[in-house]
């Protein structure tokens, strides 16, 4: 059943020539790699309207389903124009392929006709985002009730995974958080130094660095770092467990994934992020202090004594106070996106990205709200 002449693998190009307007001579290799040219020629050919029309196929040297589809379509087109079509000279094994194509022609056309319905896609999209919002609310609710249960019987807390999470997401994040806020402190002091020197109000560098860092920048930088570092990891870990059916296995043991996976992570971050923020405060102010003494001749002692009077305790408390809420946002979004993963590899990547974008978005929204509200209460 060799349907191509395997000895002549170096395929000569497929060609068609119209002889006397009534015969189409087909030659060469009608295979998928060659038949594209013929298809283009056939598409612009002058077909006779009506009468007899002959396809002469004895010159076809190789033939596969691609060639068969092209030839079948040419035959159909000729018939549609009212021609009486005959196909001659095809080898028997090529004829078999032709009948295979014609036997499946109607099914093929049904396949080709299936297109995704656009309005249906839109409503599906709307419905999906609605259910996702509802599922988000449900997830927050389930985590809250699990937390209430935990408060009633604290012995149920998974100490091991909580402490492990504390180490991974808190302790291990110290170097990068410290380095970044130190550099941010340096940058703010440099930019401020330019302006303050003009007015000779060098000592106000303390107010600038102290208040902006403690109140806004250190908590935000720490939160954004943790969202990128831990939020994404939560989504990927839980999502992979879902794909490999580990979550289902947990449930068959009567264990709740929320108790086991979500609460330890939420609690660990709620502890870790405020601590990281304090650490970030210290290193950021230290960076500012270095530049102040270097560029503005504000000595360390002068800086620190001014710090005591200029930076009220409430700035520090507001900054620290936001951190646990940032932590809850990051942990919940990360875990939630992990549970949303269905299907495969593609989904894990997508939801990991979504978790980072969403948690940073929500953190900044919440931070802006805080600023507005606190401004009203003139704090």
């Amino acid at each position: 059943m060799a349907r191509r002449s395997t000895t002549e693998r170096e395929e000569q190009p497929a060609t068609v020539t119209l002889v006397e307007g009534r015969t189409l001579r087909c030659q060469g290799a009608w295979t998928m790699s060659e038949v594209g040219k013929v298809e283009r020629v056939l598409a612009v050919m002058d077909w006779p309207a009506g009468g007899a029309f002959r396809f002469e196929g004895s010159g076809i040297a190789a033939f596969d389903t691609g060639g068969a589809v092209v030839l079948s379509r040419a035959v159909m087109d000729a018939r549609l124009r009212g021609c009486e079509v005959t196909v001659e000279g095809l080898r028997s094994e090529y004829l078999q392929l032709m009948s295979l194509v014609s036997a499946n022609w109607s099914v093929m056309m049904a396949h080709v006709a299936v297109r995704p319905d656009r309005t249906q896609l839109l409503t599906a999209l709307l419905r999906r985002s609605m259910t996702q919002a509802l599922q988000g609310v449900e997830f927050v609710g389930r985590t809250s009730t699990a937390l209430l249960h935990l408060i009633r019987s604290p012995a149920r807390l998974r100490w091991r995974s909580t402490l492990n999470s504390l180490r991974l997401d808190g302790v291990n994040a110290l170097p990068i958080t410290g380095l970044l806020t130190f550099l941010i402190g340096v940058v703010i002091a440099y930019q401020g130094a330019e302006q303050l020197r003009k007015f000779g109000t060098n000592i106000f560098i303390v107010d600038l660095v102290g208040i902006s860092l403690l109140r806004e920048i250190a908590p935000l930088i720490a939160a954004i770092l943790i969202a990128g570092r831990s939020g994404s990891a939560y989504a990927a870990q839980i999502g992979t467990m879902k794909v490999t059916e580990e979550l289902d296995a947990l449930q068959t043991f009567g264990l709740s994934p929320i108790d086991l996976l979500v609460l330890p992570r939420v609690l660990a971050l709620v502890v870790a992020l405020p601590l990281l923020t304090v650490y970030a405060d210290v290193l950021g102010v230290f960076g500012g202090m270095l530049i102040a003494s270097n560029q503005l001749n504000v000595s360390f002692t002068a800086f620190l004594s001014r710090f005591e009077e200029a930076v009220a305790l409430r700035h520090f408390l507001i900054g620290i106070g936001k951190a646990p809420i940032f932590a809850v946002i990051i942990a919940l979004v990360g875990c939630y996106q992990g549970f949303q993963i269905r299907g495969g590899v593609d989904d894990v990547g997508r939801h990991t990205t979504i978790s980072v974008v969403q948690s940073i978005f929500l953190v900044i929204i919440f931070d802006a709200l805080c600023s507005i509200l606190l401004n009203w209460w003139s704090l």
Partner: protein
Amino acid sequence: MALVAPTEAPIIEVSHVSTRFGPAIVHQDVSLTVIRGEVFAIAGGNGCGKSTLLREIIGLLTPTTGSIRLLGANSRELEQPDGSPLHRRFGVMFQHGALFSSMTLSENVAVPLKEHTTLSARLIREIVALKIALVGLPPDSAVKFPSELSGGMRRRAALARAIVMDPELLFLDEPTAGLDPMIAAGFDDLVLELKRLLGLTVVMVTHDLDSLWRIADRVAVLGEGRVLGMGTMEALAASEDPLLRGYFHGPRGRAAQQNHVGASP
């Protein structure tokens, strides 16, 4: 195949292949040939190196020593960075389908056509539709993503992708593993049908004794790093080799044989 001239070289020739992964010896001096037009099965217990041998034949792995000739060329040719024309002449269906999860079924099947041919978009759609119809998938499945298909449908979709270029040679890695008996039998029939329609030579790796009895023309049984036996199922089942007897005459082996003998008068 009566049409095959006796002088024609075998379509696959594995000669004296040995494979080692560090200290672990997978194959030692494995030789076998596959003839054009047959259904050739590679069988053997778990971990006997069936899939490794398959991966070596299709150029994903290089054997430690020995050579493999595929369609008249050295399979090392497949390692060339810009691809070899050899790639268009065989199709592979992987064990879990290996469908690209970010594409719909029809996009998956169209990948080789888009990459290797200059056909128009319309013709590609028609050829894809023909192949999807040939493997027996319903029209509306064409726009679905792999995650929306059942296991059996995914297997058929992977088969459609493997045959889309009309390969001369089709490789199947455990085609019926994890399918229910009805669907597995249907899949066996489908492979035979496609082989007849498209003139394929089929090489499959399988554990499935029912499949071996139903569709394999010849079987090579691997074990202990070598070919324990090669031939028709009847010949292998009649062998006195204790390892082969263990493989074919366990309770499942006998049941499969009886099924086959009962089914074909």
